[in-house]
């Protein structure tokens, strides 16, 4: 962790993410309005002291919706990546530990999944399952585990023949013990890095789905659908698209900086300083 904090990029990323998580956490405490309360007398007000980020086409307070939207957007990121990472670890561990035909089979599945354009797959599945926040999280998760699988497998393959593993095995350690006590803990860093980068891309995917009308559905606020609501007024009510756009940009930036910084910090080959 110290290493990370010495990397300025990672530090910035860390601060951004911590700040946004904090805001999401205390959203109900600091939100000045009800996120779904519409006010027909206050449509499209520009930012002021009463409405820090203005109001939208339904007279809702954009700042409040941004705060609540951060919860949805971050939740989509976390749950989707949680699912992907869980699948990736299980499949990657099995493939990397047992090798042989199991490995071949799993890696062929990975190849198949990687050859179908992911966004097409997500769109098709969400359309058939009806867009809802849970379906979106599950589908993003189910279509983005391949990277983690490859990563875990590669780590396991390289760790598998290290002395400490061989020694443990010689001492009669069970497979599960080997995996959970020896191999997995030593592969954790790249998994964490890839999860952090995964959250960033899940937030972007959600905003893209919102743009296409297949993301988190109104009246629930997500950054993606606030931004989509604002796109028709981009020349007139700039605050409607600027704030959610910047929020997505900064958050994704934060995750990328942190993820990349972590990778640099723990990857001896590319850390030159």
């Amino acid at each position, binding site marked *: 962790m110290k290493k990370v904090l010495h990397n300025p990029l990672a530090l910035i990323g860390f601060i951004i993410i911590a700040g946004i998580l904090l805001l999401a956490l205390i959203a109900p405490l600091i939100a000045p309005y009800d996120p779904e309360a519409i006010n027909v007398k206050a449509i499209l007000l520009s930012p002021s002291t009463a409405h820090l980020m203005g109001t939208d086409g339904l007279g809702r307070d954009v700042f409040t919706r941004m705060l609540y939207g951060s919860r949805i957007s971050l939740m989509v990121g976390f749950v989707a990546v949680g699912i992907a990472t869980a699948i990736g670890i299980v499949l990657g561990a099995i493939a990397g530990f047992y090798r042989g035909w199991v490995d071949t089979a799993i890696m062929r599945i990975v190849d198949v999944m990687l050859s179908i354009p992911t*966004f097409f797959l997500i769109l098709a599945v969400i359309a058939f399952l009806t867009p809802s926040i849970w379906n979106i999280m599950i589908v993003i998760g189910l279509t983005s585990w391949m990277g983690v699988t490859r990563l875990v497998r590669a780590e396991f393959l390289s760790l598998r023949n290290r002395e400490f593993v061989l020694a443990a095995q010689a001492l009669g350690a069970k497979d599960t013990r080997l995996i959970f006590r020896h191999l997995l803990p030593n592969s954790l860093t790249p998994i964490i890095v890839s999860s952090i980068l995964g959250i960033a891309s899940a937030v972007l995917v959600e905003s893209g789905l919102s*743009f296409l009308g297949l993301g988190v559905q109104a009246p629930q606020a997500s950054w993606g659908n606030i931004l989509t609501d604002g796109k028709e007024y981009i020349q007139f009510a700039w605050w409607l698209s600027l704030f959610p756009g910047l929020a997505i940009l900064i958050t994704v930036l934060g995750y990328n900086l942190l993820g990349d910084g972590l990778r640099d910090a723990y990857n001896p080959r590319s850390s030159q300083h």
Partner: protein
Amino acid sequence: MLKYLIKRFFWMIPLLFGISLISFFIMHLAPGDITTSEASFNPKASEESRQKLRELYSLDKPVIVQYGLWVKRMATLDFGTSFASHQRPVFWQTKDKDGNITLGMIQEALPITLLINVLSLILIIGVALPLGVISALKQNQLADRAITLFVFIGFAIPGFWLALMLMYWTGVQHAWLPISGLESMGHENMTWLSRTIDTLKHLVLPVFISGLTGLAGISLFVRNGMLEVLHQDYITTARSKGLKENRVIYGHALRNALLPLITIFGLSIPGLIGGSVIAESIFAIPGMGKLFYDAVLMRDFPVIMGILTIGAVLTLIGNLLADVAYAWADPRVRRGVMQ
């Protein structure tokens, strides 16, 4: 080399089999069946006509038979005709008895998407390579910082937001570039040259938007690859042998840093094709992404299945090409040292 090629080619068969399974599974995700989730109010459509659809798509047969028929369709690239678009053939043109040719939907959309993606790849290579190299050579200097920041913003910005802002800026405020579509009014009356220029102008923003993420990713990749290579022993050796710095960098380092890039390009194809949905929807470009999105909104199953399959096949071909290129560039692979 030939042996490698043949082997590599046969690798694709299990993948195609897997793709057929996944696409078939998706087709059966919808509760009920595909005829009940059509996206139109059609109170007068009789149960009889639904039955016709079911027969057409073999929905009345056992699942295993349906799958067999689906594989057969995939193998012959026969995806039938669209539900939604006046029975247009999904994949390739058909000719009726009077000799009228109806173009296939994918047949028309694919070249447009391929053109945009090829241009994006050219943009990515043309811009990301120098950026990555500069970034690596000027490590931790101002240029490196600026490029890195650009890279991260390129990763992080929602594409459609940037697209709309650029459309407003270059299209409405300054009239530098057309806003959407592929052609200006009167395009068909222009000379060959001005037609090409017209189309290229329309493609500037879409290509930039669809290439942006790749551009960011590749320049970062090149930077890190270069850095890694520059610290390898053989570079130190080359330097110590007194080779000129330029020669070291461009002759040895860059070449080795670029090798993995070939694979990366192969892997980036599905992302580019998938990413075309948003760019094409916002810029009103009738490519694969727009076609797919429309099909999804209309629940037009034959088109959805056709595009999923063709998209996957394209990716496989892209990967094959990348692997072949890699084998050609790296003798170790060719000789089968590395698998």
